[in-house]
C-alpha cells in the first residue's frame, strides 16, 4: 500500500510537469495582451505599455518565462497578477471561501437528491415514481446551467421578487438574519448547480443499484426474512455505492475550481469568475495558477478515489 502510494505520487510529478508545460505553451501562443487596453487609450503614451511589458518580463522568450515561472512555483511563489498588481495566491485565497460554500453546498444538494431518488427508483424499476424520476433527471441534465440560471432569475427575482440577482460575499446582516440572507442569495446558484449535478448522479445511482439488486445474495437475504429496508440499506446500497463514491471523489476538484458560467450569471465572486475575468484580461499568472492548482487537485483526487475504492472493496489489491 505504501509502495503503491509512493509510486503513484512519483508518477504524478512528471504528469504535472507535462501539464504545466502544455498550459504555459498554450497561453503563450494564445493571442491577446494584458496591456492591450492601455495601447488603445489616447491618454497613455505607448512607452508605458512597453515599459510594463519589459517590467513583467513579457518580452522574454517563452521557455525562459516558463523556467522563471517553474522556479518561482517551486519556491511557493505563485506569481504576480499583471492586472491587479498583487500576488496571485492572495487573489485565489480571497475567492476560495465563497467557492467552497456555493459549490460545496450544491454538491451536497446533488447528493441529497441523487441518493434517495436513485435508490428508490431502482428498487421499484418501471413504476410510476421511476418513470417520473427518470424523465426529470433527463430534463435536469439536458438543460444547460446558463439557461436554468437565467430562467430562475426571471421567475424568482424579476417576477416574484423573492430572491436577489446579485450574490454578495459580504452581507451587512448579523446573527440569524445573516443566515437567512445568505440562504436567500445562495439559493439560486446552489439550486441551479445542485439540480444539474443531482440529475446526472441519480442516473448513476439508479443503474448501480439495479446491477446489485438482482444478484443472488440479495435474494438470499430476502429469503432469510430480513426486512426490505435492511436489505436495501445494509446489503444492496453498501455494495452498489462503491462506483458512486469514486464518481463523487472525482468531481471534488470542481468544488475548488468553481463553476464559470453559473458564477458569472449570479456574480458569485468565486474561482470560476476569477478564471474567466483573468482569461478575458490576458492575466497569464492568474490563469496559470488557477488551472495548475486545478490540475493538481484532479490528480490528487484521482489517487484518493483509487485508495478509497480499495478500502471499500477489499477484493481490490494494490500492487
Amino acid at each position, binding site marked *: 500500500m505504501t509502495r503503491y502510494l509512493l509510486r503513484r505520487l512519483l508518477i504524478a510529478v512528471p504528469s504535472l510537469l507535462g501539464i504545466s508545460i502544455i498550459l504555459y505553451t498554450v497561453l503563450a501562443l494564445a493571442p*491577446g495582451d494584458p496591456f492591450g487596453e492601455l*495601447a488603445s487609450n489616447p491618454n497613455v503614451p505607448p512607452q508605458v505599455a512597453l*515599459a510594463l511589458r519589459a517590467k513583467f518580463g513579457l518580452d522574454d522568450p517563452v521557455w525562459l518565462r516558463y523556467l522563471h515561472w517553474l522556479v518561482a512555483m517551486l519556491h511557493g511563489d505563485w506569481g504576480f497578477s499583471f492586472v491587479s*498588481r498583487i500576488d496571485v495566491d492572495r487573489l485565489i485565497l480571497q475567492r476560495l471561501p465563497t467557492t467552497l460554500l456555493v459549490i460545496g453546498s450544491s454538491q451536497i444538494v446533488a447528493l441529497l437528491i441523487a441518493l434517495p431518488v436513485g435508490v428508490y427508483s431502482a428498487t421499484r424499476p418501471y413504476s410510476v415514481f421511476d418513470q417520473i424520476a427518470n424523465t426529470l433527471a433527463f430534463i435536469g441534465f439536458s438543460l444547460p446551467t446558463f439557461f436554468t440560471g437565467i430562467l430562475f432569475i426571471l421567475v424568482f427575482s424579476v417576477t416574484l421578487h423573492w430572491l436577489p440577482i*446579485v450574490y454578495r460575499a459580504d452581507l451587512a446582516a448579523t446573527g440569524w438574519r445573516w443566515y437567512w440572507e445568505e440562504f436567500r442569495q445562495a439559493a439560486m446558484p446552489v439550486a441551479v448547480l445542485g439540480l444539474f449535478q443531482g440529475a446526472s448522479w441519480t442516473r448513476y445511482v439508479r443503474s448501480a443499484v439495479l446491477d446489485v439488486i438482482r444478484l443472488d445474495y440479495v435474494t438470499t437475504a430476502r429469503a432469510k426474512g430480513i426486512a426490505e429496508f435492511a436489505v436495501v440499506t445494509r446489503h444492496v446500497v453498501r455494495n452498489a455505492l462503491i462506483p458512486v463514491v469514486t464518481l463523487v471523489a472525482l468531481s471534488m476538484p470542481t468544488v475548488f475550481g468553481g463553476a464559470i458560467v453559473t458564477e*458569472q450569471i449570479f456574480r458569485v*465572486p468565486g474561482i470560476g469568475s476569477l478564471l474567466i475575468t483573468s482569461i478575458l484580461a490576458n492575466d497569464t499568472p492568474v490563469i496559470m495558477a488557477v488551472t495548475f492548482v486545478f490540475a493538481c487537485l484532479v490528480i490528487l483526487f484521482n489517487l484518493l478515489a483509487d485508495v478509497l475504492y480499495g478500502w471499500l472493496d477489499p477484493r481490490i489489491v494494490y500492487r
Partner: protein
Amino acid sequence: MNEEHLRSLIGAAKAGRVSRRAVVRRLVGLGLTAPFASLLLTHAGVAAEPGAFAYKPQKAGGGGALKLLYWQAPTLLNPHFAVGTKDQEGSRIFYEPLAGWDADGNLVPMLAEEIPDIENGGLSHDGRSVTWKLKKDVKWHDGQPFTADDVVFNWEYASDPATAATTIGSYQDVTVEKIDPSTVRVNFKKPMPFWADAFVGTQGMIIPKHLFEAYTGAKSRDAQTNLKPVGTGPYRFVDFDPGDRVRGERNPDYHLANRPYFDTIEMKGGGDAVSAARAVIQTGEYDYAWNLQVEDEILQRLEKGAGAKGRVEITPGGNIEQIQLNSTDPWTEVDGERSSIKTTHPLLSDPAVRQALGMLVDRDSVQKYIYGRTGVATGNFINNPARFVSKDTHWEFSIDKASEVLEQGGWKRGPDGIRTKDGKQLKLVFQTSINAPRQKNQAIVKQACQKAGIEMELKSVTASVYFSSDVANPDTYAKFYCDMQMYTTTMTEPDPSRFMRQFLTSEIAAKANKWQGRNITRWHSAEYDDAFAAAEGELDPVKRAALFIKMNDLVVNGQAVIPDVYRPRVSGISRQLRAHLTGWDNDVWDLRNWYRET
C-alpha cells in the same frame, strides 16, 4: 459665429449684467458646445457659480447604503496604475483631483480652493504656467494634513518612468513646484492652451506622499496602500477584493459641509451589462449601474416595464464609432510590413471612391435599427464639446448619388455588376471586432455598397485580438491590413488636442514604431499638421476652437474616416437617486453630492 457678438456676451457676463448660466445657454444656442462656452467664460474670468448643483440634505450621513453595480470590477485601487475606467472609478471613491469636469465641461474645484483663471492670477498671460491654490484644512483619511508637498509628490511619482504609471502622459512634460504649503505651480515647456490636464479629472487623482514616498519607481508595486487607499474623498476605505467589490464608509471629516449623504458605499463588479441593467432598472437591488452597453430596445423595455425602479441616463461625451479608410496599400508588402506609408491604396486613393463610400453609409438606419439612443448619427469626427463641433460638414445617404460619383470617376459596371476602372475591380474588405451591433452595421454598409456596384467582403476579428498590441498578430486594428475598418475611438477630455493627434503625420502607425502610433488610417496632410501645430500654441480659445473645427473638416471632407455614430455614455440609475453625471470625467466624479430623494 460672430466674434464681436461673442465678446459682448462675455463682457455682459463679466459685468454681472447677465448670469453665467444664461450666457452659457445663449452661447449654446449660437451653436457652441456647452463645455466650450463655459471655458470661454472661465478664460475671461467669469467663475462658475457655486451651488449650481442643488444638494438638498441638511446634514452629513443618514442616507444608508449606496450600491453601485459595475459589470467590470475594479482590479486595483491606485489611480496612477488604473488600466481601465473601472480602476479609475474604484479609486475615485477615495481619491480626489484638484478639480473635476462637469457635464458642461466646466472645471469644478475639488481639492483646489478655486479654478485658476487670468483674473485671479492663476493663469499666466504667456500660457506657460498655472498656479493652483489648494484648499486648506483638508485631511487625509488617516488624519494627516493635505499640503502642496502631496501634489508635488504625485508629479514626481507619476512622471518617473520606473513607476510605470498609466498617468505618465499627463505629467512627463510638465514641472511642478511648491510655492507655499497651499500653493503649487505647474510649469509648461511651451505655452499650453489646455492647461487643465495634470491634477485634473481622471488623470489627476492625488495620492498621499507620506504613504507612497517609500514606494516610488521600481518599488511601486510593493506599496500596501495600492490596495488600501487612504485618500481625501467623501468615503473612507473599508475593504477590497480585487475583481469583486470595493467597500467604503462615510468620512466624518470630509472637507465639505453636510456631505456625504450615504453612510456606506459598495461597488460590486462582475457579471454582464444586461443583468446589471435589470438589477437597477427592474428589481431596484442596486442604485446605479455603470456603462450599460446594452441594445437600446432592451433598455426601453426594462424602463417601460410595470414597477420599474430605475431609469436610463444618457450623458453626451466625445466617443465616436467611425469607419476608417486605409490610405496605404494593405495587400502589398514593403520592407516587411503591409499598409506601409510608402504605398498608396490602389482603389481608395481615388477621391471618387472615398466620396461614394461616404454616401453609402446609412447612418440614420444604423441609429434607428441598431443603437437607438446609444448611438447618434453624425457627420463630424469631433462631436463634443459643442465649441469644437463643425457646422460646415454635412452628410447624406444616397445610393443614386454615389453611383453617379463613381460613374463620373470612370468606374463602369462590369458584366457581374461590379464596377471596374483600368482593369481594377472595386472590391473592398471591411473589418471590425466581433460584437453584434458592429456586424449589423457592417451588413447595412455592405448592402448599400453592393447596390452601387462595390463588392464588399466582411471580416470580423475577436475583440481580444483586434484591440491587442500584439506585434506578431496581423489582425490588430493598429496594423490595419485591410481596406476599411470600424471601431470606437474614445475622447476622454473636453479638449480635442489629444484626440486629434490621430491624424498627424508623426503619429502614423508603422513597423518602425511597433504600430504604437495613433494614426491608424495613415491619412496625412501638411495642412492638417500645420493647423494642429498652430492649435498647440494658440492661447485664444476662440481661435483655437476654429483651428480644431478646421482639422475636423479636413479629416471629414478628405474622407480619411467616415464618422458613423457618436456614442454617449449610458448609465442605469435608481429613480430616487440624485447624481450629477458627466461625459468628461469618471461617473463617480461628483460622488460627494449624490443623495437619495425621499
